[in-house]
């Protein structure tokens, strides 16, 4: 007779830490979001007043906030599928041969994911620079005029997203590669004996068997892109004129840089709610495939 407590015992150490450092802060943020707390609160706690949903109304009336939500949605809409597809494709290609050359290439694809954001900012900021950057230098050699990679509002979104996709694929390629090991070799051999081409095998057998990995990558990439922060922050500081300001950057600037904790907490709760809803939808769609 299996002990009913076993699953709880397995889960509790990790959950304890998560609750302390993950859930409790969310609850605290929810409480703070109903106040006007800012840095002066630490000088004198009487400076904090309960304001109910004022922070939320202020937020929803702020056009900059809506612009940032729109930007975030746009980035996620194009960025997440791009990352999932590219990572999957590269993983499948890398896995198509056990030759040492293929194995060596893995490190190259992984490198962007592990490079510190400071280095990325410097390198890409340099590559993209309008007057003095390498990309425009190369373009000028073939007669193309300067491209305003980071200054043109529409193009800046693309440039920033490109860096984020470049960075985001590395980890997911590795996850897909690990998942590909779970595809039983017998199935693949059986298919090729039946005369199926490798393309057909890939689409009809391998990819369906990677469902759980694709699901994982989709959800985590979506959550990450809804919190998009690093790349626009270091490359364009949310500019030009707010074109690349994501919801997280808006929160960071309005709330944390200005130490308006009440306002920032309200924004964080709203962002959290959006992410939670989208994730729940994704979970619902996939709930049939949860069990194996």
């Amino acid at each position, binding site marked *: 007779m299996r002990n009913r407590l*076993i699953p709880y015992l397995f889960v509790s*150490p990790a959950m304890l830490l998560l609750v302390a450092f993950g859930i409790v802060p969310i609850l605290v943020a929810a409480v703070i979001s109903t106040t006007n707390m800012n*840095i002066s609160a*630490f000088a004198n706690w009487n400076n904090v007043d309960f304001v109910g949903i004022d922070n939320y109304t202020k937020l929803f009336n702020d056009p900059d906030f809506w612009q940032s939500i729109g930007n975030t949605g746009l980035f996620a809409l194009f960025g997440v599928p791009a990352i999932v597809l590219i990572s999957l494709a590269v993983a499948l290609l890398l896995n198509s041969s056990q030759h040492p050359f293929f194995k060596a290439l893995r490190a190259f694809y992984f490198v962007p994911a592990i490079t510190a954001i400071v280095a990325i900012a410097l390198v890409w900021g340099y590559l993209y620079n*309008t*007057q003095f950057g390498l990309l425009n230098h190369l373009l000028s050699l073939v007669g193309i005029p300067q491209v305003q990679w980071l*200054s043109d509002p529409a193009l800046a979104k693309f440039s920033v997203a490109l860096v984020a996709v470049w960075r985001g694929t590395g980890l997911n390629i590795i996850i897909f590669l690990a998942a590909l090991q779970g595809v039983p070799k017998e199935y693949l051999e059986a298919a090729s004996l039946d005369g199926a081409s490798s393309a057909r095998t890939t689409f009809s057998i391998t990819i369906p068997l990677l469902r759980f990995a694709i699901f994982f990558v989709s959800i985590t990439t979506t959550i990450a892109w809804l919190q998009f922060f690093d790349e626009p922050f270091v490359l364009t500081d949310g500019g030009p004129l707010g074109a690349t300001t994501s919801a997280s950057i808006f929160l960071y600037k309005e709330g944390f*840089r*200005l*130490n308006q904790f009440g306002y920032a907490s309200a924004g964080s709760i709203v962002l959290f709610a959006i992410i939670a809803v989208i994730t729940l939808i994704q979970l619902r769609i996939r709930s049939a495939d949860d069990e194996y």
Partner: protein
Amino acid sequence: MKRTAKGVLAAVAVASITLGASACSSPAPAGDADGPLTVWVMGDSGANFETLVADSGIEVEVVAIPWDSIDEKLTTAVASGSGPDILQIGLSKLRTFADAGALMPLDDELADHPALSPENFPSGVAGTSTSVGGEIVSVPWTSDTRVLFTRTDILAEAGYDAPPATWDEVREYAKTLTARGEGQYGYYIPQWDAPLPIEIAWSMGGDVIDSDGNVDFDTPEFAKAVDVYTGLYADGSVPVNSDFDQTQGFISGVAPMLVSGPYLGNGISSSAPELDGKWQASPLPEGDGGSVSLFAGSNLGVWHNTDQKDAALDLLEYVSAPEQQLAWYKLTGELPTVSSALEDEELNSDPNVKVYTDQLATAKVLPLVSNWDGAVGTELLNALNAIVLTGADRDESLAGLYAKTAGLSNK
């Protein structure tokens, strides 16, 4: 099975107890009554500070704080009540630190510590110029300002044998220099430089706060400043892309004139020594009100609940002595604030440095309004950049600025 369950429970219990036990053997908190003074120094100047105070007889432990992370550090320190003993405060953050209750008022201490008295420092930064809520909560330490940098060789080729002295001249010279050719400009305006239009307004003889301390941009002098700003763009003399690199622009000659700080001068000297003699710093261009520039830099403050007040004040006096101020300049290139140090002959032997020190005599700090950078600086840039970069209507844009900044005060 039951045994395994107990085993796991036991492991978790042991882990929690160990965690709790290890917590008790943590080191003594900073700011304790004997022991070195903890000093927060910004950026990578930590080692330099230790060198500076090596002979002071006061034991010091420096903690370096990255410039971009000071908000996080400050917030957690005030939230928990434990901070350093002395901290470096960038002037733009002074109001925030004071509002957080992080700084000890020093008015009563100044009598016993003559080196810290306001008369030792330029009027732009001393005493009431940097007091918050009527209290002096910091002491000036390093200074920074903005002056005009020009490529004298390029100006000479265009027929100008001296840098422009007024804003009208700036505009005229810039137009000529832009005509040099495709991809060439006359003047660079950094799109993130919020103090610049304010410096121009000051040099027109105006101010951005009224006599009651309220922010007020709706003045004729500011309107003239906006004319200069938008005029330069209208002439096509200024690059419009936001990622224009000011150092590269200056070194390559693409943008041979701009207003910047000593850090640019140092950057050019160290990375482009072949340009020596081909560029110079000169006073900020004048308007009707003379040449009035920005007083930036850092002050030093004492943490509000430090246990070592006397030692902290002694250290402040030590670093405010002219010899130490000049020694700091030698170590880091950051200019002193003590007036007698600013007048030092050796310091001023470099003509560019003399320009900086002269400028500091009349420079002003930005108003100590709560959240100046975000509430005012950002709105100012948004309004102006909307006009010059996206063609927004000038009056409408400025009206928006006035509305958003009305009611902000430095009281």
